[in-house]
């Protein structure tokens, strides 16, 4: 029996360093794209550390979490 569900390819997750204009510190955000390059999701906020940013992306599905 063949599943009728569409095939769901994993997204491409990109992490972007963002410089804060007020104090010059670097914060992070993330965006996810389909493999055809279409935007799929984004964080809508910036994170103090890269680790926090990755953790947030994980919660959104990065690495299958």
């Amino acid at each position: 029996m063949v599943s009728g569900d569409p095939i769901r390819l994993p997204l491409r997750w990109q992490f972007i360093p963002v410089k804060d204009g007020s104090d010059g510190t670097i914060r992070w955000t993330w965006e996810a794209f389909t493999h055809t390059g279409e935007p799929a999701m984004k964080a809508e906020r910036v994170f103090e550390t890269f680790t926090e940013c990755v953790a947030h992306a994980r919660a959104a599905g990065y690495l299958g979490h």
Partner: protein
Amino acid sequence: MSHEDHKRGHEPHEPAMSELIDPSMFRYMVQQAREYALFVLDPQGRVMTWNAGAQRIKGYAPEEIVGRHFSVFYSMDAVAQDWPAYELKMATREGRFEDEGWRVRKDGSRFWANVVITALRDEEGRLIGFSKLTRDLSERRQHEEALLQSEERFRLLVEGVVDYAIYMLDPDGAVTSWNAGAERINGYTREEIVGSHFSRFYSDEDIDAGRPWQELARARREGRAEDEGWRVRKGGERFWARVVVTALHDPEGRLRGFAKVTQDLTQMRQLQHLEKAAKNLQEFIAVLTHELRNPLAPIRNAVEALRQGGLRPEQEAMRQTIDRQSAFLARMVDDMSDIVRVSRGKLTVVRAPVRIDTVVERALETVAPAMSAHGHRVELELPEKETVVNGDADRLTQLLANLLTNAARYTPDGGLIAVRAWREADSVYVAVRDNGRGIEPDMIDRIFDMFVQGRAPLKRVGGGLGIGLGLSRRLAELHGGSLTARSEGENRGAEFTLRLPLAAAAAPRAGRARPAKSKAKEPAKAEAPAHGRKVLVVDDNVDAATTLGELLRVLGHEVRVTHDGAAALQAAEAFLPDVVLLDIGMPGMDGYEVARRLAALKKAGRPLRIVAVTGWGQEADRRQAVEAGFDTHLVKPVDLDALVKVLSDRDGALLH
């Protein structure tokens, strides 16, 4: 009567020996002598008698050989040449014939014989036959042949040696032999040089000084003479030579000449000079690193102090410029320290279980400013399963940060840098790929060499010293791993792949590594203790001391600043500091001495932490500081995070 008188008195009456000995004794002597073959031939060469020695040497019993022609003792070749007849002819004519050569035994085997044939004549002089005496000299012959072969082998060996010039001189210094090495090193062929005086290999000034003759005189006097110095090849080119001259004497002690062995050490000497130059360069870099840390320290202190606010926007922009550029300088100084460690073989890693995703995240935090400045994005793919290596978290972070910094530097703005980590067999791989300018194929192997930049940076500023990749590979190797590079060519990006062995399954569970370095700027306020400490800053560099003091005040501490050891000790008595930040290299009383005296206060029960703040960052410097009584050691320019930790940490030293 004397013995002589006795002899003289009796001589005329003594019988002749032949009268005393029975003639049959001679016959027995001949028949039974075993060392020599003694037999008689008739005038035609047929064997007439045969003794024990003949039987032993030639193998025939008397009944087998008597009556046969003596040519049976010769090889077929000798018989074909009529050699036996020639021997008899010569013995007949000359009375005696002696020969040495191969003869044949009854069993066909050969032996080397010395043969004496004597013509026997009667009282009228008629030839009645020949006596033949044969000695078996096979052993002597074998020995001589072995000696000849040995000499030949030795000659061939000497002649074939090309790494050394080996030749002989006569007692006056004229060349008498010449090997291949001599031809290679000195440039003359055997025909050109044999017979010439060996002073041709010396410079004019050495000849004027009489050095060739002095060398021979010393060898004659002491048996051998060794020398090292410039010599001259055929074309006039000089080479650095090590020479040994040995005097050769005959058994009677007469000087027969000299053996001379010359080694061309030009390349070795050049190598020694290069090594010395490299060592000097290392020393220079070590001193330069120290000297650069001193001016950097007050700059970094001042920038950190200014960070605390109160600047107009345009001033803040300038502060950030100073911050970025001085941080870049500080990183270069750190890299230079690592060069010194690598070149001295002192680069070490402190290994513990560490998660690879933590290392990647920390490295990305470290390079975030560079990524941001270039507008790069990072695509990250980490293994889902927790992946642990046994490594030095700081050094692995440094390694990956190097790769990421390179990727950011060599990729046009708005580029994409992909970091992918995966497990394979017993290893974890971390690949950093960019879509930048790539690496020329002929540079791939060279980019890991120190001071080589495989690709021109997009902007000259921030090009670095060309040591990052060399250092990174060394770090990978220190972890039992490897670092490789590949690129499809110019403008087609590059990929660097780090391989590290996975930690053994039994390894303790790895913790998350400490926060990334770039975040040190943030915790400065957050981690500062609720109450300020009393801090004594001691540094003869007034700028360094003042700015560090200002930074500490901004962080909420009470500070005293002094610029020499004596003032520091007085302040320690009057001010009663919790922490002393003490420079080591001060004129007069140095930091070590001040630390020793302060340590005495600690022993008296005063809570006090003594911290070395110095430009010397090698492991030996840290050890020496601890031995002198310092509780801890900070390297200039002081990392704010480390400074905050020292001021707040209650572990490991007296601090209330």
